[in-house]
């Protein structure tokens, strides 16, 4: 019965849906990591932007203008992280933890201040980004049911995989980002300002993560609830690390974690104890990380002949 559920087009459709926020964050993490900085603040950025998405889409009465404004917020937080790490020489992990902490408190405070709501943004009239049916594709058996009728942001996330790939591997700026990440001093010696590149990378990282944050409260769900990023920013760190910080690798691993999330969502409705089922995405990430790291270690040992 469960197997039937897993191989149904419905499940794969849900998998893409659940993958979307993780994928955005994983792409964000990939760009930051390629430039040589770990962006652990993704969790906080997603939480902040999930809230601002609701606020802005209600204020502008347009999800698209709301999304645009939210992206600016995400970029700003990414820039702030860069400022602390690069200008003030703050440890990148501790700076990110601080941002995540601030996000936890500030989202509650801002929600209360803006709407008087506690816990969930029930009185904010936010507008979500719609789902669309794809012409032609929707008529293809099976595949149509999987791919069509998704949220526009889900399609954007898939397109972003290609965009980030081209950006990193086919543009001069992408090359500079990778150069700084590979060897900062070598990049500096040919006249690349590593600071500037990292500012750009972290800001971009924030912008892309904000799409994931917006999706959480304006697509995946229809309201903001406190703590709704629920570790997805951290899962995304694992996804991009396991995907070798490449966009395509990050996408494949995100799909795996998205599937675990979707499976957990389905099983919670059944007879299974929902607490144990909720462990699935995190357990998958932990085990996946172990398997990936182990094979990478073996490969390196083989290459160095030890």
């Amino acid at each position, binding site marked *: 019965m469960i197997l039937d559920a897993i191989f149904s087009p419905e499940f794969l459709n849900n998998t893409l849906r659940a993958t979307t926020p993780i994928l955005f964050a994983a792409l964000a993490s990939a760009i930051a990591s390629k430039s040589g900085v770990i962006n652990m603040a993704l969790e906080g950025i997603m939480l902040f932007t999930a809230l601002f998405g609701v606020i802005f889409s209600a204020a502008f009465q347009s999800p698209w203008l709301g999304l645009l404004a939210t992206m600016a917020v995400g970029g700003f937080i990414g820039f702030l992280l860069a400022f602390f790490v690069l200008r*003030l020489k703050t*440890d990148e992990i*501790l700076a990110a933890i601080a941002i995540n902490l601030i996000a936890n*408190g500030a989202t509650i405070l801002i929600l209360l201040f803006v709407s008087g709501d506690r816990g969930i943004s029930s009185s904010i009239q936010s507008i979500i980004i719609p789902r669309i049916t794809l012409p032609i594709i929707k008529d293809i058996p099976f595949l149509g049911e999987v791919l069509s009728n998704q949220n526009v942001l889900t399609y954007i996330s898939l397109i972003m995989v290609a965009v980030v790939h081209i950006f990193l591997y086919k543009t001069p700026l992408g090359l500079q980002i990778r150069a700084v990440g590979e060897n900062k001093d070598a990049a500096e010696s040919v006249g690349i300002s590593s600071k500037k590149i990292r500012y750009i990378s972290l800001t971009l990282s924030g912008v892309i993560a904000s799409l994931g944050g917006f999706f959480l409260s304006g697509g995946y769900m229809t309201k903001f609830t406190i703590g709704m990023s629920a570790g997805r920013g951290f899962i995304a760190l694992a996804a991009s690390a396991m995907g070798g910080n490449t966009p395509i690798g990050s996408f494949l691993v995100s799909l795996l974690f998205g599937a675990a999330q979707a499976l957990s969502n389905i099983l919670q409705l059944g007879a299974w104890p929902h607490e144990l089922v909720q462990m699935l995405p995190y357990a998958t990430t932990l085990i996946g990380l172990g398997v990936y790291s182990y094979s990478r270690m073996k490969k390196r040992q083989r290459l160095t002949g030890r």
Partner: protein
Amino acid sequence: MNSNTKLNILRTLLAVFIALLISFGIIFLTSEEPVKAIVQLLTGPLQSQRRFGNVIEAMIPLIFTGVGISIMFAANEINLAGEGAFHLGGLAATYFALNTALPPVISPLATIIVAGLCGMIVTGIPALMKIKTESDVLVSSLMMNYLILYFSTYILSNILRDPKAGAVVSYAVPSVTQFGTIISGTRIHIGLFIALAVAVLAYVFLYKTKLGYELRVTGENREFARYSGINVVKITLVSQLVGGTIFGIGGGVELLGMYNRFTWTSLLGYGWDAIIITTLAKKNPIYVPFAAFFLAYLRTGASIMSRSTDVVTEIVTITQGIIILLVVAEQFLSKYKHKIIAREAKAALVEKEGE
């Protein structure tokens, strides 16, 4: 005290001051009665014995978590599973106390040992994964927290739940296992002494033993430590096992002292509180109780403030975040530092010429 230490203290105080100013600014912007709120936040805990008792009660778990993370951070192991270790410690303490019938004194002692062992497992898994598969401790330890949360909630609602109680809570821990209060009129319990003892022992371990020295050297520079013949794999394991044990004991102590029933259905955030404490204490366990007192005072003040005004307690997490950012920022006050160094160098020159 050399000028560097003095400067460090000055920087930390200034960071705290700025963070508080920013928080006051936020209170002024959002509150209808900002002055009352700020007065409550700053002086609330001093207004009665019970309230000051609340500060000490809140300080106890923070000491454990601050010491636990200081040991892991001193070895430069960024293991953030302390949150989960604390949580599981509380669960294990409840489970063990409910399923054993031991005499007084032995019972609470055995219970917190079990809690410590369970905490050790939680931080031990990422440590073993790092050693056996070279997995990044940061990510694996974060995943542990969520796994422990859902696992604990499962055990609570399916095994330990007291059906007679209205909410989802466990059966009450037998009274022989519970900690008594040591000061009447407050809920301050014997765990305070355990916490302070742990802080002192951890200080002795880190600064007065060979293993502790090796641990700190490895934390400073792993490659140097390896070449000096230190078994860095052992250090990786030991630091995280010890750290997790302390977190686990903290969870057990908190449960026996303050709760008596397991009621935790969400992560309590002690793992993150530990970060600010170790930041303020500069990874030195002996300073941890002071940092824990500061945070506990702020928390208690915030809680009093939120009860009597329209400002919510979460304002404190913002203060915490800003303090971490400023204290860790190496360049914060760096110009001033350079000035001091230049002045001292000049003074030394003048002295030499005078000879």
